[in-house]
């Protein structure tokens, strides 16, 4: 802000406006270096988890690539089934080329023109662009064919396997400050009253509290680091003393309702990201494979014996007759900060991993839906005419079907058929994709007005007449103006996605066990609300309410912060979470 040291006196001779961000950092590297050192320190503390996260990211990328790679073959199979083998082969090849082409369009802009010049053709700008895309497509298809049909593929997958294996090995070998090995909270009572196997011999409750506290402290430190980065950029490296974004941030900081929402959303995200550290027992032991894992406890006779989780879970159910309530130990010395579920599993573990499920689904669904909405709104407002009408038709069709029922039908159809897409997260990915499919028309309608307005602006005409490609015009000159709107709608809709996911799982149509989900907890505890096991259905319900309120508050605050005068149609977004 105004604290930026002003060196603009000599700016007349040498206007520093032309300097790139990189040059500005090079001139004054100290603040950036300090900030990056902070990042290094933070990452070092959690290095094991960082590698685990990288490994998971690899897994997701691998799954996506495999999914896309399997499309041509499955399309070909379908066509071959009705029209014969030759047609199937043609269809496979065509689909592969189409997918490759779709991938090249957004990236071809960043490929140097020299790639086309070697062809030695005399091309117009337009022709050059298409030639570049065709070239890239050819390369992509060739590489894909090489991997799919020749021995190169074997070497390639071996390489990938080696890399992912190395990352996984690093993830398990490197320490983290919040790991269970460092601060263990699973142990057994000793006959003389102490605890064996826990961190410093503390009680499991204390050890768990320390670990959880550490997680939240770490996450807060990370948040502070981010905020500091913004300030460093603002004071040292930004050219302008003031930009509208400063006002946005200032308005948000003074909106206490929005800050409340932000805090809850932050807690929710931390709970989801650090689910393995926050849960008192390992999910793998307690929920996924209770048969395969044993632990030790002090039995009634004062002897340390071992048992499996599946047996211990049976004895510690909260089902009206027995109750392991919040803040208590079960009969096997396992600490249950939120009590146990009706099946005897640990509620806190369920809650944190369920947060992970909700977050993954919400972010995937809204991210994908927003992407579709933005791309279509840009295309339809840029090209208008038939593109616009086709998009209107598609969105009207999807909106004419009641969203929740549409989601139910599609999810049942894919799950009954055991489609491979229904496997990840026990149906979670499928649900996210269906939500994206059902929710993009709403978002598209919401940003249609603004994007039509932007497309009429003079700077868009100017960009066109300067020969900018349609893609560049849309990305550079139109997209920034609708980004704010999509952010607002996205955060208002994400609460609706979380509620609907929980509702579907409650009905038994959404996410199948064993993947933890909040709706299933409520379903399991619904008969025990008026008994001593009231907590089973109440705690996840309150969690849903809090998270949804928080996302709504955050969305409202973002709207007010971006543009207090913005005329955002409330009725559409405001009712999004309803109906479930």
């Amino acid at each position, binding site marked *: 802000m105004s604290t930026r040291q002003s060196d603009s006196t000599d700016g007349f001779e040498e206007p520093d406006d032309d300097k790139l961000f990189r040059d500005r950092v090079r001139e004054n590297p100290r603040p950036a270096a300090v900030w990056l050192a902070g990042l290094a320190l933070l990452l070092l503390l959690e290095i094991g988890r960082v590698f685990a996260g990288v490994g998971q990211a690899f897994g997701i990328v691998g799954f996506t690539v495999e999914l896309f790679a399997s499309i041509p073959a499955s399309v070909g199979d379908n066509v071959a089934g009705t029209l014969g083998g030759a047609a199937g082969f043609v269809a496979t090849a065509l689909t592969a080329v189409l997918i490759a082409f779709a991938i090249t369009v957004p990236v071809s802009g960043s490929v140097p023109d020299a790639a086309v010049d070697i062809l030695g053709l005399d091309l117009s700008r337009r022709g050059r662009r298409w030639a570049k895309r065709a070239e890239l497509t050819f390369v992509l298809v060739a590489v894909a064919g090489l991997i799919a049909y020749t021995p190169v593929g074997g070497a390639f997958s071996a390489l990938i396997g080696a890399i992912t294996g190395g990352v996984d090995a690093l993830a398990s070998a490197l320490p983290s400050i919040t790991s269970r090995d460092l601060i263990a909270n699973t142990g057994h009572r000793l006959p003389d009253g102490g605890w064996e196997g826990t961190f410093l011999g503390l009680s499991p409750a204390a050890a768990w509290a320390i670990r959880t506290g550490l997680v939240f402290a770490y996450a807060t430190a990370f948040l502070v680091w981010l905020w500091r980065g913004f300030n460093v950029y603002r004071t040292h490296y930004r050219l302008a003393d003031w930009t509208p974004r400063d006002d946005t941030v200032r308005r948000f900081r003074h909106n206490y309702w929005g800050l409340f929402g932000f805090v809850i959303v932050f807690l929710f995200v931390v709970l989801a990201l650090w689910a393995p550290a926050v849960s008192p027992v390992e999910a793998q032991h307690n929920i996924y494979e209770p048969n395969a894992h044993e632990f030790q406890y002090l039995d009634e006779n004062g002897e340390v014996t071992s048992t499996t989780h599946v047996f211990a879970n049976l004895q510690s159910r909260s089902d009206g007759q027995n109750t392991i309530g919040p803040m208590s130990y079960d009969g096997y010395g396992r600490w249950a900060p939120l009590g146990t579920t009706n099946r005897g599993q640990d509620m806190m573990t369920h809650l944190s991993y369920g947060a992970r499920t909700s977050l993954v689904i919400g972010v995937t669904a809204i991210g994908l839906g927003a992407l579709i909405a933005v791309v279509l709104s840009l295309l339809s407002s840029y090209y208008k005419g038939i593109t616009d009408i086709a998009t209107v*038709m598609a969105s009207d*069709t999807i909106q004419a*079907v009641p969203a929740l*029922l549409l989601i*139910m039908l599609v999810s049942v*159809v894919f799950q009954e058929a055991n489609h491979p897409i229904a496997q990840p997260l026990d149906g979670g990915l499928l649900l996210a994709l269906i939500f994206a499919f059902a929710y993009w028309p709403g978002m598209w309608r919401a940003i249609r007005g603004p994007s039509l307005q932007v497309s009429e602006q003079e700077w868009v005409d100017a960009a066109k007449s300067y020969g900018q490609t349609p893609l560049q015009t849309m990305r550079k000159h139109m997209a920034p103006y609708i980004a704010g709107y999509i952010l607002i709608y996205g955060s208002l809709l994400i609460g609706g996605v979380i509620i609907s996911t929980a509702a579907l799982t409650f009905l038994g149509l959404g996410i199948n066990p064993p993947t933890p989900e909040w709706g299933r907890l409520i379903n399991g505890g619904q008969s025990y609300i008026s008994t001593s096991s009231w907590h089973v259905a109440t705690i996840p319900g309150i969690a849903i309410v809090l998270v949804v309120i928080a996302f*709504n508050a955050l969305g409202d605050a973002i709207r007010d912060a971006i543009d207090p005068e913005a005329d955002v149609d409330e009725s559409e977004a405001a009712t999004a979470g309803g109906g479930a």
Partner: protein
Amino acid sequence: MSRWEYFIKRLLLTVPVLFSVLTFLFIMLRTGPIDPVAARLGPQAGAADRQQLRERLGLNDPLWEQYVDFITDFITFNFGQSWVVQAERDILDIAVGAAPATLWLGFWAILLPLFIGIPLGFYAGLNPNTFGDYAASLGGIIWQALPNFWLCVIALAVLRRTREGGELLGINWYTLGPDFAARDISITGTPALEWFSTTDVLMLPMPYVSDWTALAIDIKLILPPALILGSASMAAELRIGRTAMLETVNSKFVETAKAKGLPSRVIVWKHIFRNAMIPLLPVITSEAFLLIGGSVIVEQIFNINGLGRIFFQSLTQGDLPMAGALLFLFTLIILGLNILQDFLYTVIDPRVGYDQ
């Protein structure tokens, strides 16, 4: 473009939309990942049975012929018979039989929020930044974020508890009004809707209430689920009613009315109230979307044999043609409501429609 032209254009646009919905259903049910024969016969059926059923369902016909058959069947409401849920019964019969319960639920789910949400919102807008305003707004925010299914579960538990002496505010839900405990009926279930008879007035049959107790029982059965089903709309009405009221109160014509020396009662009722209703209209009509989606959950938990519950049953029991037919009927309802909404706009608010 005049506003009637706009209306007719919207009307015409519903035809292709209807066809694309049908196409979507066809793709999902016939060419989707699920095999209709396997879904109906189960995995252990013999090859001969399968072949026979394929022939009977017309699955061996060319795809385009199946498509044309599918579309004509749906357009003429010839949905065929249910497979599992109420086996061998006509789907249309089942739907018609289940519709009254859902309509009764929907009627109350629209009416209750109207008479709670809008007055509260207007109250909050007339007294901004007072304790009452904050209480109403906060209540609306929380009420909107409460998941319907969780509310249903909690409400049922609380209501059931009132029977065993754990009375809520001194009220025993079972004995309040028509006594359910004495009649030995459950507080959940399908309303019988047999409280009216018809009499001929000038040769026309006119319904009248013949059994007031039965009416009271039906209302009592439907009140909790309707209140929950309408919760999201109630919150939306409260919010938008408050904003609309605030905007109208601060507008120029209200200032003029005040300057004229009109009594505040007249200003509120004649000048503010009527203008603040305009932004609420779309909210009220769009409630139907929420009601249809939410009816599945609420009817399932409250044991009401309505359309939503039958849709849910047909999904969980693998009766996909029935699910598809019901979804198509719901779509028809929504398209009809869309047209109604456009019509109301065209008639009521001349500013809406063209220029877009």
